[in-house]
Structures are given as structure tokens and as C-alpha cells.
């Protein structure tokens, strides 16, 4: 079985007792629990995992971790799985992705032969002629070359994802020695701590270290785990730092979801991500068998995998040197140990499926199957950049360092300098203490300023100054490129030669170079290639690295699934107290904003007819309802409505229209005066929230001296419109305490009474349908009783419930417009046909100057009722009104229906003022291209313009 598996290693993370079976490109393999997909396959002797994006070159293990650009595989229906970090699960079906026909033989590899013609941006320079071929051929071919795995959208679903919030005082990103030190010290200082480690275990680089490292690790981990103030999240990544320390943590392999997003508002963020080892640029540096020092150390020490048999090692630092020791311990022959600090170098690696020959800087060629590179680091400053820092390159240490961090973001560990493990822990501890003090100070302030919080006791936490001793910046040679050219961006197949060319073509700033060559734009996002790309540019332009800068790091630090970002999808739904009844009685649901409503119960035309002939009831609860109380309500109404409110007696109701400050119609509804200082305002369903906020705005910021209390009562009052010629007869059976006779309770009046035994119902005589109708507002806990009582008592009167669609028909017959349908974003009051309603002589009304200006104009469109000359033809809503046979637009149909009452089509429409006079002929362009004639009516109402029915 596993031919490359070594005997037991002291720090190994595999469980040799388990055997997990899985397949790779259809063939069976096994591994152990604790293996990654890559370690298991490497143990089984697999060298080639993928083909590169553009040239389809064979690729093998390079970093053996999450960032390995060569280890993207398909696992079942999941594309782009990182084989370098995804832990093996029994039964996994793993395959190479983006290869055709297969990994061994990929036709696309022919691109290597013509590679010299496919330099950066080649596609910008060709495929232009003939023009039609671009659309019909070239583009289709390019799209076939898109990299990546396959998403199985046909069968996949949005599964069980989840999120949560957290409020740690200190959040530590990175569980290496520095991060663990910081977490412990912060917790000791009294802070609540969240420690987040990307890998499945704490320890950082100590995990693949020597016995001393493992001992320190064990101590630190024990201290972390046992402190109650620290919440440890392993196999979790801090993916983003947003303004005010709003921090995204992606937790993988939580039992309830494959990925869970934690949104943390941290007092302080400690960034302790260590360093990322960077590749070295030379010809053949992407050949399978060329690995970074960290990769071989991890393979050997974590998974007991022998990475090769004969190795050439190029080292520029102690970690590279340590790799030599690990290789020897694993029985790997060291063919050549090259010291980059002494100028020793690798020029080229030859070999296709695996390293074969290695050409050295001194001209020798040696044979080997493994090349190990330990030439330096990229500082993962991503989270710091997101916090506003612009890290600065230090040529001495040959990497980027934090520069100016906000007080609530602190860096520690390898990202800030070098040190012994003890020094790293010590720096971490000092950082943790400082972070805790700052966070506790912040917590103190928050408690003082938060009404619900317990007032802070004890002294205000102090010592907010940074007195930490810095870690050393050990000199490191600036190794990035040998004398040959090679890959810089492995995910994007961008070579140093491409970068040089781009710079010479004018793409000579790092950002332009990025966009032209796509360097740093692949899944690696610069983690491996930033330093090398900047160095190539510096070399080409003969500039200092310091002046080149870097591309912008952006979230997420590690890619995160759309499922995890979405989490549970919360889409609040509002239901009236009657909605269950509607659904139980066959109502088809209509989603209107957040509300579900009954659209109809099967036959909207029959429902509408029944309202005209007998009696119908409709649930209009979503109507916005605001309870207004106080001595200054009248003033408020005068301000927000275009019409007058001063003379509204108690017991009366009035219709009002609102415009915004720009004169555009914004909402409408009726408001009734229930008591001397008590009113009930209704708004459109969709406008309810905005109108409430608008009233509060004017009351709080414009007229704070007015005494008005606004209370939203929309859901508390279930609104039932009882409409039709027999509705009074029905209500007489159920209403107590109100004289329903037409004289005692005329149109546009309001009463309070008991309906079906339910007291405190508000009843007003208004209606959208144009029929005799009462709108009953019932305390919602009793609404179902009232609704059912109405139905039971109205049976002999022919009662039927009706839905929103019938109401739309009925209101159109009556010519009532709907704000937002018959009006639009430019409709000013005169266009809506409000005419005399608007009072321009009020001292103050919203939008008053615009209203005055609008009334002075003669060119604004006007809303009119239109009937088609052919009564059978119902134009579609939004059909255009045009100028005869020409294409000039003179208006549009805003509402249209077949009227059951009139047996003909009826419309409302906005027309050019030249067409607004009653009797004007308009040309309506139908969707099928026909042009038909319609006639502008005298009144908006097609049915009962005199209002005989509603006033009955």
C-alpha cells in the first residue's frame, strides 16, 4: 500500500489505526484519518495532481497546504477543493479537474508548443478580424479554456448553512506560538478571547518542528484549552477585517454546516498569521517534485510521507536548513545542499511528470526527483491592509512589515519580525496584554454609553501605550529569481518573462501589470507571488522594491463558499391574522413586499361581480395604519398632506395625498379623526414603513415642539373591507352601538363599535371599490372570529370573500389610481389629476414650492381614464400611447382590465396634456404591433362617476 509512508514520526497527525478508502480518478486508494487528500495520494506515490491553467503543464505538490496552487481537485460535486488541506473522508470521489480527456494526456498541453505566441494579453491583440468570427468562434473557444472544476448546479442545493454573531474583547487570528501567547495573556488580563486557527490544530509552525517545538506547543495548547476565557476555533479562518473591527471568521467542519460564518465585533484584533513561504523563480520551477521547504517538512513530520528519494535543496534560512535535517531523517538522499546565502543557485529543472535533472548555478547538472526551495517569505499582511495599513518592504529582511496600524489592530509573531520560540511567545504575550487593555477600555466606554448595560465599576483600564519590544528583523537575502525565467503565478500560469514584457509595453506599475498579465488574480491572490512579481517589476524598471508597492489585498483571506456567506436565508414574511384562513380556503398567495395576501379564491371576476351585486369581504390588513395622538396632529396632517385638515370634525374621515419635498406623489390614504386628539392614518401597504419614519423625522427634527405620538398599529388592527350593496344589511346583524343608517353614518365618516361581539372596532365608511362599503378594523386577536361571523351571517346575502385581483378590477372601474402604478418617479401632484385637492395657499406643506411650480406648468403629463374604441381589446399595462403612425411617445396605459360591470375594457393612462381633454382620441400601440384608438373619458371613474353607489 502506501509506498511513501514513513515509520511513525513524533508529531504526526495521522491515525494509523484507521484506513479510509477513496478514489482518485476512479482508482481506489486508502489513507488515514488525519491525512489530507494530497498527503494520502503522495503516500501512495502520486506525483501529478493537476494541469496548469493556460499551458496545461503537469503540476504536483508545492506547498502542501491550503494555499497550494497545484492541488485543486474535484470532490464529488464540489469543484476547486484544496487537496493540500482538505482532510480525507472515507468514500471521497476525488478527481483531477479541468483536464481533457484526462490528467495523463491532456490535449490542451499542445498550448505549450505555441506558448511563445500566447504571451500576456495576446488575446487583446488578435481575434479582431473578421469581426463576426469573434462572436461565433473565437470567444466560444476561449470560454472552453476556462479553468476550474465543474459546478453541478442541476443537482446541488443550498444546504444547511448557518451563522452566528460574537463579541469577543480580543480576537486572535493565528494559533502559532505568538497567537497562543497573545490569547493566553489577553485572557489573563480579563478579556474574553476568540482564538482562530486556520489549520485543524493549534501550534502553527511548531507542529512540524523538533522535539523542543513540540514540547512548547503542548504546554501552550494546554494553557489555551484550559483557560475559560478563551474560545478556540480550529480549522477556521479569519477571512476579513472590516471597518470598526467587524471580523469575518469562517469555521469549517462544524457539525451543523460544512462552513459557518461567524461575525465578530472585536474590541481588539491581534493578527498573528506567521509567514507564507514563497516560491523561487527559475526554469521548470513548476515541475512536480519542486517543493518549498515547508511542504517537505509538513509531509514528513505531519503525515509521515517521504516526499522523494533524491533531493536538491536550495536554502536561504534556518527553516530551509531544518528541511535538510528532516529529509535526512526520512531517508532522503541529499544530492546537493545549496546555500543561497553563499550565492549558490539553481538554474533549471528538467523533467515532465517529475523532476529529473537539475542544472545548478555552478554549471553542474545533477539527477534528482525532489527539489526543495527555502528562499524566503511573503508576509500575509492581508488583514492589516484591510485595516488600512500599507505595509512597507524592508530590503534587509526581504519582506513586508506592518507600518501604521489603528489602535484596535495589533500584529505579532513572524509577521512583525524573527525570534526564538520563546521570543515569539513573549511578543505574543505582550501584544495580548496590550490588546486586552485596549479592548477592556473600549468595553468600559461601551458599557457607559449603552442604556441597557450595567454601569462599569472599578477603575478605567489604562496602559494603552505600546511598550512592546520589537522582534528582530533578521537579515535575509533577497532571493526571488535565478538567472533563468520561470513561473511567478502558478494559478494563472504567468511567468517572469510575461511580467517583463508587460512592463515594457507600458504596464509598468504593479496594478497595471496585474491587470494585463493577471498575476495575483488567481486563487492564490498574491499569497505566493506578490514579492516575486514586485521584484521582477523593480528589476525591469531599475527601481527599489520599496517604491513598487504591492497590489491591493482584499477579502476574503481564504475563499469562502457562497453557501456559508448566505447562511440561513432570512426573508421575513408578514401574515395577517386571517392568512391561514385564506390559504385553507383556496386563496392563491400573492407576495406583496413582505406580505403574503390572497390574490383570489379561484375566480377573481366572479368575486368582483359579487361585490357589485351582493356583498364581499376582503382582508386589507397590510394597509399601513398609524395611530396619531396629541394636540398637534392637525398641524402634522397639514404639513404632510397636500390638502386641508383643519376642519375635520371628530367622527369624520378624509382622503389625502402626500408628495415628497420634490413635489412627486409619494403616498395616499385616508385619515380619520377618532377623538379630539386622536386620529388613525392609513397609508399604502408598501409605503407604511417609510411614511412612519417620515412622520417621525419631521416631528423630531423639524417640529420638535409639536406634541404628537405616532404608534404603528398595522398588524394589531386587522382590516376587513365589507363592500357591496348588501353590506349594510350584513353589518346591521353584527354591529352593536353604532347607528348604521345612511344619515347617521354617512360616507367618509368613522365610528367605533362592537362587531360580532368584539368591542373597540373602528368602522369607517370608505372604499376603494366604489361600492357602498365599510372598512372594519378589528383588534387582531379577535379578527378571525369577526371574519367568520361575517361569512356566516352573510350567507343568505350571497357573501363571498374577494382577493386583491378583484379589488384591482373594482378600483379601476371606479377610477381610483394606485401610487407607484398609475404614478411614477416623476409624477407631480397635477399630473395625478389631484386638481383642487391641492392647497397651494397653505403656509407649509411638503414640496410646496415644487407644487406651485408644477401648477404653473402646462407641459406635464396628466392621468386620465381611457376607453378603447373596440370594447373587446384590453391593452396591456404599460402599452405606449403614440402619435398616430409615428414612433413619438405621448403617454402610456398605466392600468387596464376587462370590466365585468361594463363588459368592456377600461384603462387609466398618463397622456401628454394635448390629449387630456375628455373626448380626445389616443393611439395605443399594442404588444402585437397593432395601433388602436381609445377615447379619453370625462371622469377617472368608468363606473358610477357620481358616486351614487358608494354614497347609498
Amino acid at each position, binding site marked *: 500500500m502506501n509506498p511513501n509512508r514513513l515509520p511513525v514520526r513524533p508529531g504526526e497527525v495521522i491515525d494509523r489505526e484507521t484506513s479510509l478508502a477513496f478514489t482518485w480518478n476512479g482508482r481506489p486508494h486508502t489513507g488515514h484519518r488525519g491525512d489530507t487528500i494530497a498527503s494520502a495520494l503522495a503516500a501512495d506515490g502520486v506525483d501529478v495532481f493537476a494541469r496548469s491553467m493556460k499551458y496545461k503543464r503537469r503540476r504536483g505538490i508545492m506547498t502542501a497546504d491550503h494555499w497550494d496552487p497545484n492541488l485543486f481537485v474535484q470532490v464529488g460535486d464540489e469543484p476547486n477543493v484544496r487537496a493540500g488541506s482538505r482532510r480525507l473522508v472515507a468514500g471521497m470521489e476525488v478527481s483531477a479537474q479541468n483536464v481533457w480527456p484526462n490528467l495523463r494526456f491532456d490535449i490542451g498541453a499542445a498550448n505549450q508548443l505555441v506558448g511563445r505566441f500566447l504571451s500576456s494579453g495576446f488575446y487583446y491583440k488578435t481575434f479582431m478580424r473578421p469581426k463576426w468570427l469573434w462572436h461565433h468562434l473565437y470567444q466560444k473557444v476561449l470560454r472552453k479554456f476556462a479553468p476550474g472544476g465543474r459546478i453541478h*448546479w442541476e443537482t446541488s442545493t443550498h444546504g444547511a448553512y448557518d451563522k452566528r454573531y460574537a463579541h469577543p474583547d480580543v480576537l486572535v487570528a493565528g494559533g502559532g506560538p505568538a497567537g497562543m501567547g497573545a490569547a493566553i495573556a489577553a485572557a489573563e488580563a480579563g478579556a474574553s478571547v476568540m482564538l482562530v486557527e486556520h489549520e485543524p490544530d493549534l501550534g502553527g509552525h511548531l507542529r512540524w518542528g523538533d522535539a523542543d517545538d513540540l514540547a512548547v506547543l503542548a504546554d501552550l495548547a494546554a494553557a489555551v484549552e484550559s483557560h475559560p476565557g478563551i474560545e478556540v476555533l480550529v480549522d477556521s479562518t479569519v477571512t476579513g477585517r472590516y471597518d470598526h473591527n467587524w471580523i469575518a471568521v469562517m469555521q469549517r467542519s462544524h457539525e451543523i454546516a460544512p462552513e459557518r460564518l461567524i461575525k465578530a465585533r472585536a474590541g481588539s484584533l491581534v493578527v498573528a498569521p506567521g509567514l507564507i513561504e514563497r516560491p523561487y523563480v527559475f526554469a521548470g520551477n513548476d515541475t512536480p517534485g519542486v517543493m518549498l521547504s515547508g511542504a517537505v517538512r509538513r509531509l514528513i513530520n505531519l503525515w509521515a510521507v517521504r516526499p522523494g528519494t533524491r533531493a536538491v535543496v536550495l536554502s536561504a534560512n534556518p527553516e530551509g536548513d531544518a528541511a535538510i535535517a528532516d529529509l535526512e531523517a526520512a531517508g532522503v538522499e541529499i544530492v546537493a545542499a545549496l546555500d543561497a546565502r553563499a550565492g549558490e543557485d539553481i538554474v533549471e529543472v528538467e523533467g515532465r511528470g517529475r523532476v529529473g535533472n537539475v542544472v545548478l548555478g555552478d554549471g553542474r547538472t545533477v539527477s534528482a526527483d525532489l527539489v526543495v526551495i527555502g528562499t524566503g517569505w511573503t508576509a500575509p499582511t492581508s488583514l492589516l491592509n484591510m485595516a488600512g495599513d500599507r505595509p512597507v518592504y524592508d530590503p534587509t529582511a526581504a519582506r513586508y512589515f506592518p507600518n501604521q496600524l489603528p489602535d484596535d489592530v495589533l500584529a505579532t509573531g513572524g509577521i512583525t519580525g524573527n525570534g526564538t520560540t520563546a521570543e515569539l511567545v513573549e511578543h505574543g504575550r505582550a501584544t495580548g496584554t496590550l490588546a486586552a487593555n485596549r479592548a477592556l477600555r473600549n468595553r468600559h466606554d461601551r458599557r457607559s454609553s449603552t442604556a441597557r448595560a450595567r454601569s462599569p465599576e472599578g477603575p478605567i483600564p489604562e496602559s494603552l501605550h505600546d511598550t512592546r519590544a520589537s522582534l528582530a528583523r533578521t537579515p535575509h537575502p533577497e532571493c526571488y529569481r535565478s538567472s533563468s525565467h520561470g513561473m511567478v503565478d502558478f494559478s494563472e500560469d504567468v511567468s517572469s518573462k510575461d511580467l517583463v514584457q508587460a512592463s515594457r509595453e507600458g504596464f509598468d506599475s504593479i496594478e497595471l501589470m496585474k491587470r494585463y498579465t493577471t498575476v495575483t488574480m488567481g486563487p492564490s491572490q498574491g499569497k505566493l507571488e506578490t514579492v516575486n512579481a514586485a521584484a521582477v517589476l523593480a528589476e525591469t524598471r531599475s527601481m527599489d522594491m520599496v517604491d513598487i508597492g504591492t497590489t491591493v489585498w482584499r477579502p476574503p483571506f481564504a475563499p469562502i463558499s457562497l453557501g456559508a456567506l448566505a447562511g440561513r436565508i432570512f426573508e421575513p414574511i408578514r401574515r395577517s391574522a386571517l392568512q391561514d384562513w385564506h390559504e385553507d380556503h383556496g386563496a392563491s398567495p400573492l407576495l406583496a413586499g413582505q406580505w403574503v395576501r390572497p390574490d383570489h379564491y379561484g375566480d377573481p371576476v366572479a368575486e368582483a361581480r359579487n361585490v357589485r351585486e351582493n356583498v364581499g369581504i376582503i382582508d386589507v390588513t397590510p394597509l399601513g395604519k398609524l395611530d396619531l395622538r396629541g394636540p398637534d396632529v392637525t398641524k402634522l396632517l397639514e404639513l404632510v398632506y397636500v390638502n386641508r385638515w383643519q376642519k375635520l370634525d371628530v367622527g369624520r374621515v378624509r382622503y389625502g395625498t402626500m408628495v415628497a419635498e420634490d413635489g412627486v406623489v409619494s403616498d395616499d390614504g385616508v385619515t380619520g379623526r377618532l377623538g379630539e386628539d386622536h386620529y388613525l392614518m392609513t397609508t399604502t401597504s408598501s409605503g407604511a414603513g417609510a411614511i412612519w419614519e417620515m412622520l417621525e423625522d419631521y416631528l423630531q427634527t423639524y417640529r420638535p415642539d409639536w406634541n404628537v405620538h405616532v404608534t404603528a398599529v398595522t398588524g394589531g388592527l386587522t382590516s376587513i373591507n365589507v363592500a357591496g350593496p348588501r353590506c349594510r344589511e350584513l353589518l346591521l346583524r353584527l354591529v352593536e352601538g353604532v347607528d348604521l343608517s345612511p344619515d347617521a353614518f354617512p360616507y367618509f365618516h368613522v365610528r367605533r363599535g362592537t362587531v360580532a361581539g368584539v368591542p373597540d372596532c373602528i368602522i369607517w365608511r370608505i372604499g376603494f371599490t366604489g361600492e357602498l362599503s365599510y372598512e372594519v378594523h378589528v383588534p387582531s386577536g379577535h379578527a378571525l372570529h369577526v371574519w367568520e361571523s361575517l361569512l356566516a351571517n352573510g350567507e343568505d346575502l350571497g357573501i363571498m370573500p374577494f382577493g386583491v385581483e378583484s379589488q384591482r378590477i373594482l378600483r379601476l372601474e371606479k377610477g381610483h389610481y394606485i401610487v407607484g402604478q398609475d404614478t411614477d418617479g416623476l409624477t407631480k401632484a397635477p399630473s395625478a389629476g389631484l386638481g383642487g385637492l391641492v392647497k397651494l395657499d397653505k403656509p407649509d406643506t411638503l414640496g410646496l414650492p415644487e407644487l406651485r411650480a408644477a401648477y404653473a406648468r402646462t407641459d406635464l403629463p396628466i392621468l386620465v381614464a381611457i376607453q378603447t374604441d373596440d370594447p373587446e381589446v384590453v391593452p396591456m399595462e404599460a402599452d405606449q400611447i403614440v402619435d398616430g403612425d409615428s414612433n413619438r411617445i405621448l403617454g402610456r396605459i398605466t392600468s387596464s382590465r376587462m370590466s365585468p360591470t361594463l363588459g368592456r375594457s377600461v384603462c387609466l393612462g398618463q397622456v401628454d396634456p394635448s390629449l387630456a381633454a375628455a373626448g380626445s382620441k389616443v393611439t395605443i400601440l399594442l404588444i402585437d404591433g397593432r395601433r388602436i384608438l381609445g377615447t379619453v373619458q370625462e371622469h377617472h371613474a368608468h363606473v358610477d362617476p357620481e358616486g351614487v353607489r358608494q354614497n347609498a
Partner: protein
Amino acid sequence: MARHGYKYSAGKLIRHGLTRGDWPRMWRRPEARSSYDVVIIGGGLHGLATAYYLAHNHGMTNIAVVDKGYLGGGGSGRNTAIVRSNYLTPEGVAFYDRSLDLYNSMAQDLNLNVMFSRRGHLTLAHTDSALRTMHWRAEVNKLQGIDSSVIDPQEVKKQAPSLDVSADTRYPILGALFHPPGGIVRHDAVVWGYARAADHLGVHMLQETEVLDILCEGGEGPDGKGAGGRVTGVRTSRGDISAPAVVNCTAGWASLISNMAGVPLPITTHPLQAAVTEPCKVFLPTVVVSGSLHVYVSQTDRGELVFGASVDPVGTYRVNGTLEFTEELAGHVLELMPGISKMRLLRQWSGLCDMTPDYSPVMGTTQVDGYFVDVGWGTYGFKAGPVAGETMAETIATGRDADLIAPFTISRFTEGDLVGEKGAAAVGH
């Protein structure tokens, strides 16, 4: 095409491949002159297109395009590259349709493949009222000869099979406005194409040069700025440059520049965010936009899904992005395509948008002589870039507002004649 440019072709590609010879620079890094006939502030698409058309159509070549960063570093280099012309108002349709024409022949005109992918553009309707507005748009479009129609859910499914068109979702897809000529363009290539062509005609592109002030005389405000005055030049981080004409093409930063001339704008700056996923084999053929869900998505030729949304509610000049953008985005995309939950978001970014109250630009002459604006491009200025450049060039060369931009001049805010694109353009792609 440019007068003395180096011409790209398949033949050249082969020749360079064989000889491994260097390609010539696309544009130079010139030394600034002390005066130009026109100084254009902003080296984005609009500034560069204006410069190109001034030089190409009007023979004015003593022009500088000044940018504080790199070419295309503003909205032009970070937009989701959607182009279309199915606007709601006749004036909008006419304007954007001209732009689409220019895009259509751009690769040949500029001799750079901008990879215009006319893949079709779908705007989904989830409500009756959205369907009605779409029908409205389709009818207006048809009257102006634009290919645009409302299609039913089955047809939607044909155009974009990964969409869930079943009726029982929270936001059922009731239909869509389908606009076959719409699509996406390689946004960077458009910037580079104009830059290269303008450079060949002699235009100076001054990168990493920040405008700190606009120099004026005779105006009613302090330092001779404001109404009634005239422009004399600009002060930059690399010294003063005199010019009788200064053009503001700075999009998200437009207010800052305009305030320097004493011309306040009806603009607030809001970030607009976007994101890409890791690449994945191509499965989404069209551009899909959902106004109700505030999201739009297309798949590039490289296999990434590119997402956008509506502008952030909190106005700011900070472009570091927010987490809630990606959360909302993912939630909404998955409502439309539940099958892609395993795709991973690779990068999010943000750019500044100069939002006007009526979702339409502010263009043309101003109350300060020689100071021109081409701003207010909000979330839709990429598709307008070519026509804006063409019409602004005409306006600057003639001193009169070009016909196509008459509805968009700043005077509409004093006259109260706003443009009616707001409803249709709220998620303006």
C-alpha cells in the same frame, strides 16, 4: 484608426512569437507641458475617451489627461462591465444605443480586442409591478428600434438554465426583460484601447499626478471661482498647468473637483461593490440581473462569476468593502441559483459611484466658462463611456452642448426637469 500607431494582428503575434522581440509600448510616460488646450481630470474611460475623440474627431491634440493614480484605477478598472441600451426613457435609449454602436466596432476602431461579448442581458421580474415596468421598457425600446422584449419563465430557463424558475420560491421568476445585444466587455481593454489610441494621436497621459485645485478668475466666489467666472488651469501635485478648458471626468470624486471650481453638484458618493468567485467551467451564458434582489451576475470567459449589487447605503469615499455586501449577495444569488452554493467567493472589491437624484449623468457646459463636467455616472457609466467621450468632445470643441446630452445638463436641477430613469436603474445594470 490612430495615425501613427503600431498595428496589432495575428501576423504580428506570430512574428513576435518567433523573434521574441519586444512589443512597442502602448503609451508613453511623457513629461508634462506647462500648458495645454484642454486638461481632462480623470484617466478613466470617460477622460480617455473624451481625449481620444477630441483628437480623432476634432483634431485637438494638445491635451493632457491627468490622473492621481494609474490609468483606469477608478470605476473604469473595477466595474462589472455590463453594457446594454434598454433604458426606460427615449432620451436614455438614444444615448446608450449610440454607445453600444461604438462598442460594437471598437475592437476594429481602436485596433485592440475589447472582447465585447454580446451574450444577451436578462432582467428578471419577481413581481407584477416589475413585469409591468419591463413591458414599459420593452415597448419604449421597440419604438426606438432596440431589440428588447419580455419573455416568460420557460424562455428564461432556456437562456440561463441554472436559474430556478419554479413558482414556489420566495422570489419567483415571473418573467424577464430580454435584451440580446447587451453583454459584457473586457473593461480594462477599453481603457487601454482609448489610452493607446489617444497616445498615438499625441495626447499626454500624466499618471500619478493629482489635481489639487482648479484655477479660475472672474467668478462670484472666492478666488474668482463660481458662476460667471472662467477657468485658467489646474494646480497639480507636480505643479501648475494652464489651460482654457478643464474637464471633470472624476466620477466618484466629482464633487471634490467641482467644488474646486465653485460649481456644487447634485451628487453624493457611494461605494458600489462587486465580487468574483473562483473559476469554474462555464455554465452561465447570459448576464442575469434581478432588481428586486439587488444582484446581478455574469460569468467571464475565464469562468469566474462576477457579481454586483446596488450601491451601499452609507455614503463614503472608503473602498474597503463590507461583509454584509457579500452576505446579501450570496443569499440573493442562491435564491436565484440554489445549485451553486459550493462555489467560493474569491475576492470582493469596491469602487466609488457619483450618484445623482435621478440616476442620470450631469454633462456639458457649466456656469463657469471653460469648466466642463462629465460626471454623475453612478453605477452605469461604463456602458456610456464611448458616447460620453464622443459627445463631450463635441461639446468642448464647439462650446455648445451636444444634442444627445441636452437632457443631461446641470440646468435640469434648476429647472426641475429630472430624467425618469430612477425606477428602472435602481440596480442599474
